[in-house]
């Protein structure tokens, strides 16, 4: 399989196998016009198998969202065909409009325009809670 190298953009690497399409959906990558490759089940020395997403455009990439989905992901920034930066992610302190609060008693259940904001309350156990009602993210 031959996939062109990208010139200016990102290689989102070390994605857990099977998660690439989920990331594609959450980052709304379908809106892009540029070359974009999703590689599933690539061979990885470290992980056995991994997914990779290549984006040939310098878009605004929400690293918080990626960090929330999987802090093990690496983001390589490519300029003029060279990797110029390698970003290791971590769990973000706060995520906005990535997950929805499902508590029917929460104010977000009746006020549609409110952002759904979750805060990291326990890094060790990866617990996020709604800032409004404190319900645990599921």
């Amino acid at each position, binding site marked *: 399989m031959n996939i062109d190298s990208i010139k200016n953009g990102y290689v989102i690497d070390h994605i857990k196998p099977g998660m690439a399409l989920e990331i594609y959906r959450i980052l709304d990558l379908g809106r892009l016009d540029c070359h974009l490759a999703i590689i599933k089940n690539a061979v990885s020395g470290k992980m056995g198998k991994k997914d990779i997403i290549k984006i040939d455009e310098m878009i605004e990439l929400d690293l918080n969202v990626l960090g929330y989905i999987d802090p093990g992901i690496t983001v390589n920034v490519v300029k003029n065909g060279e990797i110029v930066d390698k970003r290791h992610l971590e769990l973000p302190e706060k995520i906005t409009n990535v997950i929805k609060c499902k*508590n029917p*008693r*929460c*104010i*977000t*259940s*009746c*006020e549609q*325009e*409110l952002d759904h904001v979750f805060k990291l*309350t*326990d890094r060790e156990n990866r617990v996020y809670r*709604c*800032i*409004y*009602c*404190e319900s*645990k993210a599921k």
Partner: protein
Amino acid sequence: MRHLIDILDFTTDEIDALLDRADDIIANPEKYQEVCKHKKLATLFFEPSTRTRLSFESAMLSLGGSVLGFSEAKSSSASKGESVSDTIQVVSAYSDIIAMRHPKEGAPLVASFRSGVPIINAGDGGHFHPTQTLTDLLTIRREKGRLDNLTVGFCGDLKFGRTVHSLISALSRYTGIKIVLISPDELKLPTYMKTDVLDKNNMSYRETTDLVEAMKELDILYMTRVQQERFFNEADYIRLKDSYILTAKKMESAKEDMCILHPLPRVNEISVEIDDDPRACYFKQVACGKFVRMALIMKLLEVEA
């Protein structure tokens, strides 16, 4: 500008200062009777709670201020579909401080994001009720002279009782607190309260289903109502309900200086024969609620006597 959404928004030093101020208001009410002259408190009660609303209004009137507001959602623009943010931006143009109760959890936090004046959470669904907790703390400190080194029993509905959860969270910041959780299995304190609050703060606690057995060690007994609708079947409710009714007989083994608290309203969980017992502090607690709200309004409005 400060708001009070969650009791943990204030440090223990700030809470101590508030309680000191409340004590001084009780001792010298005349000193405070005009400190909020020309200031207006808006009480926005999107769900009815006459008791809490009257407490806030009485507090503001006792400080020389005035009050405006509504007591149920249908008499506000919320019934026309207005958002909390919009209502708050309108009302903050008419008032200097807002006390707000709302059936949805987090509504006062949303209000605080857009308000031009301080917001006090007067209860958001089953979530927070920080001024009840301030009331409880003031009552405990006035009755026992301290907020540390106390054995506090919580009895009844510990699963859904937000006043119980808030008071346990507030007490978790003081040293030497022992908690005794007295409830039927169906209404035990939720696991997250045990892991996130009790265990996290290394608080000493134990659980029991027997009020009489626990009674003798308590400095404070915080009663709550066991509601029939919390049970899956009527038989369980009938079997258990009397176990959690406080009677003179059950008080026999209590310490002579134990203090009984209850957030009120009571239905039958404290027998009226207890009302004359000097250890019954729940009506004193109501009065404390007004004084601590006076202290809170002064703090948030940044006015001094």
